[in-house]
């Protein structure tokens, strides 16, 4: 709904602006060009997405999620001291985090929602932890950004994966700042 209003407003703005910048003709052709360009773009990254989905499937089948889970639980107990006491919430949190790390969005969301529902049911004591869960899920924890690598490869990058260290570092900074902000706001919020 909100997105629809935003799109409409941006179209209007462009139509009003184009004659002023002397680019009415270019703007007139742009929409058709854009629609046409969307198809080859998706085709150009589809191959990469398929290949890396296969690698993720391999990791899933050899139990990478379970192996990660064991290592993640001590961390989760510290992050969510109240909720982690409930066995069901802890397992949902673990599934959510390991799926996020592996980049399995389709598995991360249902598990995260289960954890969020469990926390909401705990009421007052867990409401800060529920906010933390939201903050962690709105930051990216993905270790292998396959979609971005596919886009770079399709655009002719010399080495599609050479941005990996930068992505990891930036994700780490983002998550740390999110948790820091969470720790700060939790104390200030009334």
């Amino acid at each position, binding site marked *: 709904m909100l997105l629809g209003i935003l799109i409409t407003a941006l179209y209007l703005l*462009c139509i009003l602006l184009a004659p002023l910048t002397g680019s009415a003709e270019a703007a007139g052709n742009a929409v058709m060009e854009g629609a046409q360009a969307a198809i080859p773009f998706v085709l150009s990254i589809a191959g990469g997405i398929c290949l890396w989905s296969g690698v993720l499937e391999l990791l899933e089948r050899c139990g990478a999620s379970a192996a990660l889970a064991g290592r993640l639980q001590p961390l989760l107990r510290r992050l969510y001291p109240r909720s982690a006491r409930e066995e069901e919430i802890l397992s949902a949190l673990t599934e959510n985090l390991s799926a996020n790390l592996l980049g399995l969005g389709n598995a991360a969301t249902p598990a995260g929602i289960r954890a969020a529902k469990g926390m909401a049911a705990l009421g007052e004591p867990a409401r800060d932890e529920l906010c933390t869960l939201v903050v962690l899920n709105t930051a990216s924890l993905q270790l292998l950004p396959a979609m971005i690598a596919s886009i770079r490869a399709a655009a002719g990058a010399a080495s599609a994966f050479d941005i990996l260290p930068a992505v990891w570092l930036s994700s780490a900074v983002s998550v740390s700042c999110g948790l820091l902000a969470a720790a700060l706001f939790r104390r200030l919020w009334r």
Partner: protein
Amino acid sequence: MKSLGALTAPLLICSAMLAAALRGVDVYDALLTGARRGMKTAVEILPALLVLYPLIYLLRASGLLELLGQCLSPLLQALGVPEETAPLMLLRPISGSGALSVASDIISRAGPDSLAGRTAAVMLGSSETTFYVAAVYLSAAGVKNSRWAIPAALCADLACFLSSAWVCRLLWG
């Protein structure tokens, strides 16, 4: 070391295959299943891109993107962020497909190995669609008052954008 970096993709794939084979997983079947899921993903993102690509092209052709860049460039320059990434930073928390469209546009125009192209890729890869994700979680849990969740999440996004720009400048600037 350099050739090892160049071989990142086949090395990653091969280690996953090896790990799976050692655990008795049918490697070929797993890759096929993954490829099928990948096709589904590609088909699922297509409609949104078909709606948003014309808009991105229109934004660029009408001069609005340039205007936005010019307005924000003093601030972005002071922060050391490439001004081409301005629309990406504005759109990223709101729309995942919109961010994907804008980022791919920046990457193909500025070049995947240019500073702006790399910064856009790192920004896209180290952030999430904040408002969308928060809405999904909060509404599923029936939470009406999200308190400090959104402000804290936006702090994380801001940190992500700045650190993406700085790390890229450090490594490839």
